[in-house]
């Protein structure tokens, strides 16, 4: 299944590299800060690589670097996202896209910390929350 995508990518030329800014999100569903990451004070940068279909939907995604806990959570959420079909060249093509997520954990809070989600063009996302103090 993915092989055809890779083939399509090869045929359209490697110009559609992972830094290709032509894939603009058309639908973003916000991604939270995972509870276990807050509880364990896990933060940092995560790079996700998505394989996109011609119509801009997400075929597959994987964690390139960063915490698996954060990364897997993103991969689950990102399947809901959509991108503008790539119309560079004669035909719409499938492609590969890298997205960068930064998880920030502020100083301690109690109760239920809310997380905020910020998108910076073209492919950078920041998710912030507050760490939780221990409970016995």
């Amino acid at each position, binding site marked *: 299944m993915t092989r055809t995508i890779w083939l399509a990518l090869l045929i359209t030329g490697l110009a559609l590299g992972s830094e290709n800014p032509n894939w603009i999100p058309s639908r973003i569903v916000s991604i939270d800060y995972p509870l276990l990451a807050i509880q364990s004070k896990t933060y940092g940068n995560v790079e996700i690589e998505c394989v996109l279909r011609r119509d801009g939907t997400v075929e597959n995604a994987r964690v390139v670097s960063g915490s698996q806990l954060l990364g897997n959570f993103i991969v689950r959420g990102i399947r809901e996202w959509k991108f503008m079909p790539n119309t560079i060249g004669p035909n719409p093509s499938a492609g590969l896209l890298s997205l960068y997520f930064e998880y920030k954990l502020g100083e301690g809070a109690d*109760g239920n910390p809310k997380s905020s989600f910020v998108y910076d063009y073209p492919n950078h996302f920041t998710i912030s929350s507050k760490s939780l103090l221990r409970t016995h």
Partner: protein
Amino acid sequence: MPEKERLSPTETRAYDSFQRMTSMTTFGGGTIAYNYSQTANDGKIVSQTSGAETINYNYDSLGRLTQATTAGTDGWGNRLTQNAVKGAVPTMVTITDPATNRIQSHTYDQNGNTTNTPQQGAMTYDVMNRLKTVASDTYGYDPSNKRVWKNDELTFWGAGGERIGRYSATKLVDDTGTHVFVFQKVQVDEYFGGRRLTTQDRLGSVGSYYPYGEAKSGTVSNADSFATYYRDSTGLDYADQRHYAAGIGRFTTADPYQASAGRHDPASWNRFSYVQSDPFNFIDRSGQMMAAPGTKEGGGEGWAPSPITSPISGPSDPGSSDPDPGGGGGGGGSNQSAGVVSVGNVTKAGAQYDAVQMAFARTLAFLDADCEKFLNSGGLNVRDYVSDLFAYDLVAVGSAPSAIAAFTNIGGTDVPEGYAAMVFNSNSAFFNGGLSQVFKVNNGKITGGTAKAQTFIILHELAHALSASGFKNDLNNPQAGKENDNAIDKNCGKTFGNMK
């Protein structure tokens, strides 16, 4: 998350110009030197030096060990006596029947299987001549004759014939009569370059043994022992395809592999003897055929599984889970306030960690519907949460003041960032009944250290972790802690009822 500690064992071996191993330094420490004859180029070890101890080995004209701590074999190649030349060593005298090659004080069945010995008592065999029962043990085998069951203990074997791990099975019965089996790891084996990652000597022995396998100090029971074997509490060694009686120097059954005997080799005609009575130069990993210790099992003869040769792979995702400390928006590490709890010896291994894992499994097995509803009332699912908790390796054990049984969230502690979400205190009533004065489990209604105490503490932490409805923040607030305990008591009564 910090990278998990990686395995980096080093073992050093030295060889002479004939490719004979002259010394070996194991990663557990200690060097053993092996010496060979200056005049006979037969590859036989004439002495070994380990620390202050030197053992000399003498052989007869058929290459059988005649003296080390042993002396004498009969025409069949059975060990007859073991005499102490120096020091206190175990001695033995065996009388064999020269007509039948059977030990006189033992009884045998028609297939030559040993059915009774003074040491082990009665033994029974299955139709494949595999040991079925001995003393209080019952064994079960897989199609390749590997022993997979020992009473309630299950052993997993890899595709290359290597042992992967041992697990004990516990049967639990819940209130609906459903049987639940919980498997707890007893030992998980790790390999490096095809060798099991324990300190083994040249023969693959764990510990120190006399030539035929009697332990030099103490009794080895239910543990890896002599020359790659596993010693049961019965005193017999599980030798892969057979069982070996170290004190006698014989297997309890005949060699199942017929081709390991040959007309040219008289010593091979005895189907019971151990490595043709040369136990220091040879080993028999599978109980089927002697082999030099350095060779790969089977020696390319295609009759036995080979040990795996590829190095073990490290934990998945090496390094990538380590957050960039500069890009993290400043976690709590910089804000060490007076309320920070110092947690020592934080670990995810050892008996206490295993006990926590077992207690989680037990808690979920006995969890009743009301309790589950209560825990899920914050909008999350307790079973998914626990599954993730272990999938991402976020449970730890560490030492903290005894008044804390366990805590959720590592904020306000010095547990490394990303290391754990829930930490159980090794100095607490979770593990120890003697600390009930310091920390009262369920306001003193449950004795510390018991299965119920562990489940109570786990349910309390889960209610925090999942923000169960009405559950309060009890940091520095003992009154809230008591109210939380009451909420567990009220909602999870049936769970404890199930645990009777």
